């Protein structure tokens, strides 16, 4: 961030004396402001304003005529479904991020291990899940999980295993939703970790090898400390995206069976848009804010730190 804060540009145009220099500086800042104006408008009108407006909306009653203060929140706290959604959102986000990170880390190592010539091809293949729009790839999963024609169950049947109710049973449905999320997100981790692996100096590994380090010690004492920053920041980014996920759950289970896979975003959509209770929907989605804020704070701190080091 530090290097964004900009130029002492005066040096370049200093010929015209103090007054004209001053005028020029002023004109420059005006131009700069005008150039940034569209951005400011988009951010303030379409992001900041709605974000604060949703706080106001959350304090109204269903027909949006009466101020109810924290009424919506106390109503939510008294509802069993709400606590179910809280629990599921946390399980969903944490499990998915952990597995994405693990798979990404492992796959990045394998790609890094093979000769450089083939790496590009493998990397290209393994990133495909990230490129396909999630709504479309989730449709493919929905079809793979189909209750009567499931292609997975067909394979299981060969081994004499009973058909699995992939989206029909609460536990399996949660598993399915998380699995698809891991499938979509793991390639992103793989790419980030691969980039980080490439930036670890080879000499460190040579030194470790001379000291007789095992492969496990090499990972623990060389790779992980060198990659700490990227690991943390990727996980935080992914936590935000996963926690606020909508597409996958919506297409795969639409929250079912019996609300057992609803997460904040899908339940807010159900309550706010489909059932028409906009204030309640806004209240539900506001519960995403604390965790997003914490993650954002850590990311920002990390980026600022690196900016200062550079």
């Amino acid at each position, binding site marked *: *961030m530090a290097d*964004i*804060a*900009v*130029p002492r540009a005066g040096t370049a*145009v200093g010929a015209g004396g103090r007054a004209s220099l001053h005028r020029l500086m002023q004109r*420059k*800042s005006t*131009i700069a*402001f005008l*150039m*940034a104006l*569209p*951005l400011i408008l*988009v*951010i303030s009108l379409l*992001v900041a*304003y*709605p*974000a604060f*407006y949703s706080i106001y*909306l959350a304090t109204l009653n269903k027909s*949006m005529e009466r101020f109810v203060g924290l009424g919506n929140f106390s109503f939510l706290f008294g509802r069993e479904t709400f606590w179910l959604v809280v629990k599921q959102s946390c399980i969903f986000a944490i499990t998915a991020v952990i597995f994405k990170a693990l*798979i990404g880390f492992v796959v990045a190592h*394998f790609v890094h*291990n*093979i*000769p450089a*010539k083939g790496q*590009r091809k*493998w990397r*290209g293949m*393994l990133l*495909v*899940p990230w490129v396909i*729009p*999630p*709504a*479309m790839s989730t*449709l*493919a999963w929905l*079809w793979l999980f*189909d209750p009567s*024609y499931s*292609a997975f169950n*067909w*394979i299981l049947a060969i081994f004499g295993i009973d058909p699995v109710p992939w989206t029909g049973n609460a536990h399996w449905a949660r598993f399915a939703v998380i699995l698809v999320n891991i499938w979509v997100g793991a390639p992103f981790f793989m790419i*980030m970790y691969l980039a980080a692996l490439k930036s670890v100096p080879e000499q460190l590994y040579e030194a470790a090898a001379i000291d007789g380090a095992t492969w496990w010690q090499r990972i623990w004492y060389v790779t992980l400390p060198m990659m700490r920053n990227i690991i943390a920041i990727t996980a935080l*980014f992914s936590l*935000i995206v996963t926690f*606020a996920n909508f597409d996958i759950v*919506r297409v795969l289970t639409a929250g079912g069976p019996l609300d057992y896979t609803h997460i904040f*975003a899908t339940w*807010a959509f159900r309550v706010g*848009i489909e059932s028409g209770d906009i204030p309640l929907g*806004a209240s539900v989605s506001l519960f*995403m804010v604390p965790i*997003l804020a914490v993650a954002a704070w850590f*990311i920002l701190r990390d*980026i600022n730190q690196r900016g200062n080091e550079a």
Partner: protein
Amino acid sequence: MTALTASGAEAARRPQYGSISKSRRWALRWSYFFLVLFAIFFLTPPIYMFITSLKSSAEISAATNPWWVYSPTLDNYIELLTQNQYLIFFRNSAIVSVCVVAVTMVISVLAAFALARMKFWGSATLATGVFLTYLIPDTLLFIPLFKTFAFIRETLGIELINRWWTLIILYPTLTVPFCTWIMIGYFASIPKELDEAALIDGASWTQTLTKIFIPVALPGIIAATIFAFTVSWAQFLYPLAFTTSTDQLVLPVGIVTTLIKGDVFNWGQIMTGALLGAAPPLIIYAFLMDYYIAGLTAGATKG
């Protein structure tokens, strides 16, 4: 196929490491083995999409081996591509995405240039603000935006809900912050001497931007363009919340809501539609993979 290339690479490599230790060679073999496993996991859904798209409804409901096509047919493709509805979805998606990309790039290149090179009151705060807005998800904004649009209809009489062009207004909230952020990074990495030299030669700020910054930061611009396109092509929540009638839908929502008719799932067509819908980003990715990856990694590492 994979086994073949793997052994090929192995053979090419052997003379280089004539005395390579046994453990190293085994590590390589295990790497290939697990890479193949993961590739199967990662590529199964798209491949299965393709397999199903070649099947007729009769073959699907006959419940034969789901992983094999006994009588391949292009009927699904022909039917979809001659069907007006699907083409409308495709057209809507294409127009929306292209417009969003254009709007996004104009806004973010201008703003990034101002933030990276010209100081003005609050510019440092704004740069942080851009990053923070990037972290605010669409799932937090769709309800208040929905209410705002309903309010605009009541007061100004402008109908914004259920109009595909509304999406052109909405999508920049998702693309502009990220694109501005990575463009700031790319612009900040350009040596100051370059634009100072231009300014000494009497170039205006506009000329500095168009003649120096844009050409030098072209890889970044391509990466940001790809990002903006991919995001607007894939966006699902906004169109689902804001558009309802079939002539206003974009691809992802169109496939999910119209091809699934009641309880009858015409899976051959759904998979074909999804595959064709996934094609544009996949094609762009196939040709511009390096830019794509640069943009992906820049988001978290630049700054």
